[in-house]
């Protein structure tokens, strides 16, 4: 369960006339992870696509063009169509679809072109509409030069002074000007205009008043727009009618192309093909049987090797474990946190998949950090809804974390802390606000069940800090021991017990020594007992640390000394389990006392205000709880835990298989 599934490397060999059926069978089996055939292998060439590939690709291309014309976007998935039907009808369908939409698309394109033409004309004419001249009056003069353009301010006064003869027309706002001057004075006029920020406006061809032309354009445009809308409606109808079929055909053709091109990843000789692949060991016999039953002895499956988990010797020719695909074998629900591990890296073939371990630790950490019935219930509900509705890996992981984290939040919130929304159930010895004092009834400290009793609230997050810190350090130590244990197993599996002893057992010894020293320190620092150097725990602790360091120095070198403080800080790092719980309890206390003890006694409208503060405050804490407890919980796994043993960098088992969404294969 902890290790990825055992993989067998196989060679599938057969004659080319059986290639197509082999490909079909490989896809059906869903257990074959194909390896690209090395292109430089002597005596082999790379395979060529199946004969149907080019025809199918061409069809797919035409279909995609139709898809684009019809503007089909991913809709809600329609009723899947039968793949068989599509294979039969596709050719005729493409032709009829093509002719059906050709006219519509053609007229749509024409309309679009004309509309943009009109738009351009409109933009050209718009400035001239404010001048009262016909278009033909702006051009074809023999002795005059015409300047038409925008200016910042009216230059008429200066023109008057400098030019002998000119005619100027300005628009009402004075920003557009048309100046007619004699050729001989054109340069002077231009110079003056430039000083007024003149920027030329080109006068379009044509005759008549710009305002009238604009009117006509407007009329034509509104007619065109109407027909454009009609075309859009027609297209919409066509889209609705054909979307399901087009999407399904796209999928089916895509699958056919993928299958047809699979031989590109295989090797070939003149009459035969060779496929390199990984198959999970336990599926191999079934695969062989299937091939035998369906293809007889024309295709042969040769088992090359069942891959062991040892590290490859350096420079060795054999395949390293990093090239073997990893297929996780965790049972539900321990596989739900798979994505959390994938986020760091895919586990290697020859290492323990930590998914199942963090599936246990993460929710416990999350629950300890929040530990409140009032937040636990919405966590569980949100997580449950998320798991039912969400599809993407990220959201599913978050929902899983909320659901299982929420369950532990409930458990710890009830038994450990006995509180909801920051208030304890049972009366508090510190005179704080509790549910008992709020509701005016005395809630019990424990539930008696005859032989044993379930406590409700063993600790207070704000008052029993010492013991909670102590507990969180112990949880950290357990977590770290697990990590080193997994590391030991990993190294032992890869390189033998000796290496495991040198590399990981040293740390188990050092941590054990640290535990003895911790017990001593707690006595001395917190309980105030005198520190005796010859205490058994001191001797055992120091001894174990020294022995561990000595072995480590031999196995790993001086790096051990550098890593020792790191181990200490790792242990202290787990105090965040308490710290985050504390900070949330503090916030909740503040909001509770503000709303219930300070505002609410005012009565009337103040009760509404108090309720508002209470709700907003707790909503904030709730969201903070998800973010901080979630991230810190993940961090403890990623940094403190994974760094002790996890290598990653494997490749994921990705078998040949067909995923259908719009089609069904009977």
């Amino acid at each position, binding site marked *: 369960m902890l290790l990825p599934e055992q993989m067998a490397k196989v060679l599938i060999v057969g004659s080319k006339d059986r290639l197509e059926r082999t490909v079909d069978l490989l896809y059906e089996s869903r257990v074959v992870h194909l390896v690209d055939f090395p292109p430089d292998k002597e005596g082999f060439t790379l395979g060529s696509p199946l004969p149907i590939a080019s025809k199918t690709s061409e069809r797919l291309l035409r279909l995609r063009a139709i898809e684009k014309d019809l503007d089909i976007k991913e809709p809600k998935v329609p009723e899947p169509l039968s793949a068989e039907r599509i294979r039969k009808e596709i050719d005729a369908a493409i032709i009829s679809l093509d002719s059906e939409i050709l006219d519509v698309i053609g007229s749509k394109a024409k309309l679009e072109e004309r509309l943009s033409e009109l738009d351009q004309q409109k933009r050209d004419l718009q400035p001239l509409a404010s001048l009262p001249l016909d278009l033909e009056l702006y051009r074809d003069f023999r002795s005059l030069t015409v300047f038409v353009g925008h200016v910042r301010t009216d230059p008429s006064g200066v023109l008057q002074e400098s030019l002998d003869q000119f005619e100027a027309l300005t628009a009402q706002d004075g920003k557009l000007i048309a100046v007619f001057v004699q050729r001989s004075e054109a340069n002077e006029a231009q110079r003056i205009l430039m000083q007024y920020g003149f920027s030329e406006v080109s006068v379009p061809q044509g005759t008549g008043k710009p305002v009238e032309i604009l009117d006509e354009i407007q009329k034509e445009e509104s007619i065109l727009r109407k027909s454009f809308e009609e075309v859009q409606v027609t297209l919409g109808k066509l889209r609705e009618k054909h979307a399901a079929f087009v999407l399904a055909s796209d999928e089916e053709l895509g699958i056919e192309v993928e299958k047809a091109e699979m031989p590109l990843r295989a090797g070939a000789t003149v009459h035969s093909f060779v496929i390199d692949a990984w198959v999970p060991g336990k599926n191999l016999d079934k695969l062989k049987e299937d091939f035998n039953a369906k293809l007889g002895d024309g295709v042969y499956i040769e088992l090359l090797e069942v891959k062991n988990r040892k590290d490859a010797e350096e420079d060795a020719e054999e395949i390293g474990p990093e090239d073997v695909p990893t297929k996780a074998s965790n049972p539900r629900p321990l596989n739900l946190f798979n994505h959390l591990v*994938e*986020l*760091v890296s895919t586990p290697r073939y020859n290492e323990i998949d930590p998914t199942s371990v963090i599936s246990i630790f993460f929710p416990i950490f999350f629950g300890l950090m929040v530990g409140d019935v009032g937040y636990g219930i919405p966590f569980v509900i949100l997580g449950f809804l998320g798991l039912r509705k969400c599809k993407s890996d990220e959201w599913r992981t978050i929902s899983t974390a909320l659901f299982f984290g929420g369950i532990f939040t409930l458990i710890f919130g009830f038994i450990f802390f006995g509180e909801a929304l920051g208030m304890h159930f049972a009366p508090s010895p510190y005179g704080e606000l509790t549910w008992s004092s709020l509701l005016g009834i005395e809630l019990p400290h424990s539930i008696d069940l005859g032989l044993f009793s379930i406590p409700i609230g063993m600790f207070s997050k704000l008052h029993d*800090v010492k013991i909670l*810190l102590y507990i969180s350090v112990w949880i950290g130590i357990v977590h770290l021991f697990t990590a080193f244990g997994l590391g030991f197993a990993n190294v032992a599996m890869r390189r033998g017990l000796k290496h495991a002893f040198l590399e990981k057992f040293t740390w188990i010894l050092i941590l054990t020594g640290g535990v003895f020293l911790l017990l001593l320190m707690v006595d001395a620092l917190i309980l105030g007992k005198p520190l005796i150097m010859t205490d058994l725990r001191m001797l055992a602790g120091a001894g174990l640390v020294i022995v561990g360091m000595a072995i480590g120095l031999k196995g790993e070198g001086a790096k051990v000394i550098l890593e020792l403080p790191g181990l200490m*800080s790792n242990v*202290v*790092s787990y105090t965040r389990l308490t710290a985050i719980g504390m900070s949330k309890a503090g916030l909740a206390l503040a909001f509770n006392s503000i709303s219930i003890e300070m505002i609410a006694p005012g009565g009337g409208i103040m009760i509404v205000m108090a309720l508002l503060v209470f709700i907003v405050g707790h909503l904030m804490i709730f969201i903070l709880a998800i973010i901080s407890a979630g991230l810190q919980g993940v*961090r403890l796994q*990623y940094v403190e835990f994974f760094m002790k043993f996890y290598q990653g960098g494997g490749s994921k088992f990705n078998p040949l298989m067909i995923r259908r969404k719009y089609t069904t294969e009977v």
Partner: protein
Amino acid sequence: MALEAGLIAIGAGIAVGLAGLGAGIAEGPVGAAAVGAMAENEKLFGKGLVLMVIPETIVIFGLVMAILLWLNM
């Protein structure tokens, strides 16, 4: 006693405040680089997160010190 308690409180505040500042200074550039790396390759999210939260332990040290001081008040 009141003075002593006040000084302890100030000490606790300084411990957690400066530790937080230190963690922030350390975490800032790492976070920026991690986001940059993630923009190029989304798969680096996990590694980026791990690297980014490493300096965070500093603030936990400060917090533990502050709590220990507070417990002695």
